């Protein structure tokens, strides 16, 4: 009894006839199995072929090792499992041959068996050709009015081919995160408390609209020259208080 020759014949013919694919062989002959049973020289040949090949797949592995070598070195139960798998599928059965492995592996659920021959499709009843329908009048759907005014403006612009009036722009939210420098507090509306100015003695702090001053308009006031300011050469005005309200807006 030459089991190995039988294995080679069965697998070779199955691959040649398209009954089996190289993937079917490697489903049982896993890399772990090859590592356990394949001699080192064959491993060297396989590695050399894989390194030089643009694509490594099951076909390359099978062709490089060769079915006679697989049948020679791998356990007979393993090769038979491949043949049994192929035979079962050829009969239209599910893959009932268990995968023989040296190490436990995650069982894979085989796909449900599919019939090899599908029943013929039902006869198609060809009905009498229907006349070509008349084109329907161009009646569009009842489109509701747009809900927003902005959308209405856009629609008017598109329909009239005229630019829509400028729409008021809503203020956008702040797009940048405020820094932690505290400078924003200077620009806030809060003012630091100030001391109320004391009015000069003998005269009201502010005159009313109908109030008439008792002082003479043309009275001379003694002014020192050092108190005069040359406004024409002055480049900047000097702030008189600590109001930095504009500072926050300038940033």
């Amino acid at each position: 009894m030459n089991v190995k020759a039988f294995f080679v014949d069965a697998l070779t013919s199955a691959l040649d006839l398209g009954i089996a694919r190289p993937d079917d062989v490697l489903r049982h002959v896993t890399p772990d199995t090859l590592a356990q049973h394949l001699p080192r020289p064959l491993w060297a040949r396989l590695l050399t072929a894989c390194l030089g090949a643009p694509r490594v797949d099951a076909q390359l592995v099978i062709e490089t090792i060769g079915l006679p070598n697989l049948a020679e070195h791998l356990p007979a139960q393993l090769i038979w499992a491949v043949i049994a798998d192929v035979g079962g599928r050829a009969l239209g059965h599910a893959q009932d041959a268990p995968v023989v492995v040296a190490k436990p592996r995650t069982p894979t659920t085989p796909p449900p068996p599919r019939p090899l021959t599908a029943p013929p499709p039902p006869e198609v009843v060809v009905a009498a050709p229907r006349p070509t329908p008349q084109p329907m009048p161009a009646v569009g759907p009842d489109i509701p009015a747009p809900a927003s005014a902005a959308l209405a403006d856009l629609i008017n612009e598109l329909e009239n081919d005229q630019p829509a009036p400028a729409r008021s722009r809503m203020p956008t939210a702040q797009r940048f995160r405020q820094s932690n420098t505290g400078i924003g507090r200077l620009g806030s509306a809060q003012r630091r408390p100030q001391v109320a100015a004391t009015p000069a003695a003998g005269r009201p702090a502010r005159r009313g609209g109908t109030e008439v001053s008792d002082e003479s308009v043309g009275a001379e006031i003694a002014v020192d020259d050092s108190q005069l300011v040359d406004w024409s050469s002055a480049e900047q005005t000097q702030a008189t208080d600590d109001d930095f309200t504009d500072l926050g807006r300038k940033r």
Partner: protein
Amino acid sequence: MSQDQRQAWFARVVESGLQNQIFNPSDVLAHATPDVLATHLPPELLSKVLQASLTAGSMTPERVLETVTPEMLARHVPHEVLWACIAAAAARAGLTNQVVP
């Protein structure tokens, strides 16, 4: 796979099994029984089998398979029958854990 491919593969496997003595003609006829052959073989092939046996004076499994070649078996006998023969031989050889029928 097409029917021709499946048929060719079964023919090759049966032929190889016989050549490599995985099973013998008696094992084949243990599954491809006379009832099976009579049911599925065409009349002209049945006639040849009978004629060969009459000429030789006996009908042995070997002689039957000389006429009903593996190719003829794969063409006419249900593949389930042939597979049962192959699987039984594998079980006898200790290749499977299945019970030998």
